[in-house]
């Protein structure tokens, strides 16, 4: 067991193998609804990363002794305290052309399930350093998905990239709508699954368990996840760190 996981270990698992959006299915709302252009996706990535860093730091440093049901709104309010000034800055200084929908989705990142899951299941139970590593890894994992979907949707949906015209034979307007993004995410998830099955076979062995449990509700009483479990675990252990337990009937099927 690796008792002092490196950033590389956490990055590999947090951003790639167990990507928050494509594998854990958390944080879908801003990705699906608001990452319609590359610039908007970049703005959302900034907001999400700030939110993750601040909330994970606060959870690890200050919120350990507060009951869980009180911690979740605290993450939300801390996130709002930092995201609203970012929104105000974007709005006031006209850094980017923000639509009303975009303005709404930036504060919505403060209540995103990515933040709650990573704060509650990792940051609050580990050191500040590891909490920040995890925030960085998950922030990178989410941001990459934001940027890929933002770029693909803008190119295919509007025939532009970051506002510049792109010469493509046909535009698919549906790509700018949520269903286009969900279908794109499905293909990205399949690609990631094939990639990890080839290069990280431990995931392949437990694939069924992951998919069966990725959508499970987070239970209240979990085995306490530790940094070494996160860094050196197989999938079952990682799922425990997320508070996910494999249902008995799914085991029976296997």
């Amino acid at each position, binding site marked *: 067991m690796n008792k002092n996981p490196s950033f590389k270990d956490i990055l590999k698992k947090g951003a790639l193998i167990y990507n928050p959006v*494509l594998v854990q*299915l958390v*944080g*879908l*709302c*801003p*990705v*699906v*609804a608001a990452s319609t252009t590359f610039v908007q996706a970049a703005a959302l990535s900034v907001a999400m990363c700030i939110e993750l860093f601040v909330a994970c730091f606060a959870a690890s440093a200050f919120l350990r002794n507060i*009951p*869980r*049901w009180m911690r*979740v*709104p605290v993450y*939300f*309010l801390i996130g*709002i*305290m930092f995201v*609203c000034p970012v*929104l*105000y800055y974007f*709005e*006031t200084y006209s850094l980017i052309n923000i*639509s*009303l*929908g975009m*303005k*709404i989705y*930036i*504060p*919505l990142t403060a*209540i*995103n399930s990515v933040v*709650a899951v990573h704060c509650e299941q990792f940051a609050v139970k580990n050191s500040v350093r590891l909490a920040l590593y995890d925030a960085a890894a998950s922030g990178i994992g989410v941001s990459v998905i934001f940027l890929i979907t933002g770029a693909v949707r803008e190119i295919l949906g509007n025939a532009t990239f970051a506002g510049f015209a792109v010469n493509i034979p046909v535009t698919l307007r*549906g790509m700018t*709508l*949520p*269903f*286009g*993004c*969900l*279908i794109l*995410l*499905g*293909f990205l*998830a*399949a690609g990631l*699954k*094939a990639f990890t099955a080839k290069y990280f076979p431990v995931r392949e062995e437990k*694939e069924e368990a*992951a*998919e069966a449990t*990725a*959508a*499970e*509700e*987070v*239970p*209240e*009483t979990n085995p306490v996840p530790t940094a070494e479990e996160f860094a050196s675990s197989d999938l079952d252990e990682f799922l425990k760190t997320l508070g996910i337990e494999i249902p008995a009937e799914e085991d029976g099927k296997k």
Partner: protein
Amino acid sequence: MKMISDLLITALFTVFIQNLVLSSGLGMSEAIRVSTRPGTFGRFALMISGFSVVTSVICSLINTVSGFASLPFAGKAAVYAGVLAGVYIIAALIMKIVFRASDKLLGTFGIAALNTLVFAVPFINESAAYSFADAIGSGIGAGIAFVLAAALISKGSEALERNESIPEAFRGTPSMLIYVGLLSLAFAGFADSTLFA
């Protein structure tokens, strides 16, 4: 009578025409989580509707306060966030102290209250200039829309699990995402536009 009809029309619009979960992605992660537990649908519908109604009614009242309309959008977002957090904390304290609710129930409470769907409802009410009755209808509709989405996802995921002809790379999460995308496409057909113009 007009108030009731406005309320019902807005609720029906929120559920069937512009399903907030499937046509705009609000609360989608939570809907996918909850879809694996059909037994909890009723509880979630009640909780989400309750939190949405209370939050949107309070925010609608705040919208009428003179000077609030001139706040920058970030200021409005902070006020709405404070209202939602306050409603959740008061409700959780009542559940904890009066009804001796377990931590597990309070956790479910948290998922139902603190999600993008409930937080978005006051913004939708404001941007659509909804009346007081519309705001209540929108709140009720949010809870029902959530459960409708969760039920559709639940049924679809059962069928996907049984389907042996899905290629290996698409089994599980990828096929689930594509299926939810097709559901979203159906509701986009009803709505004929994105949520926020």
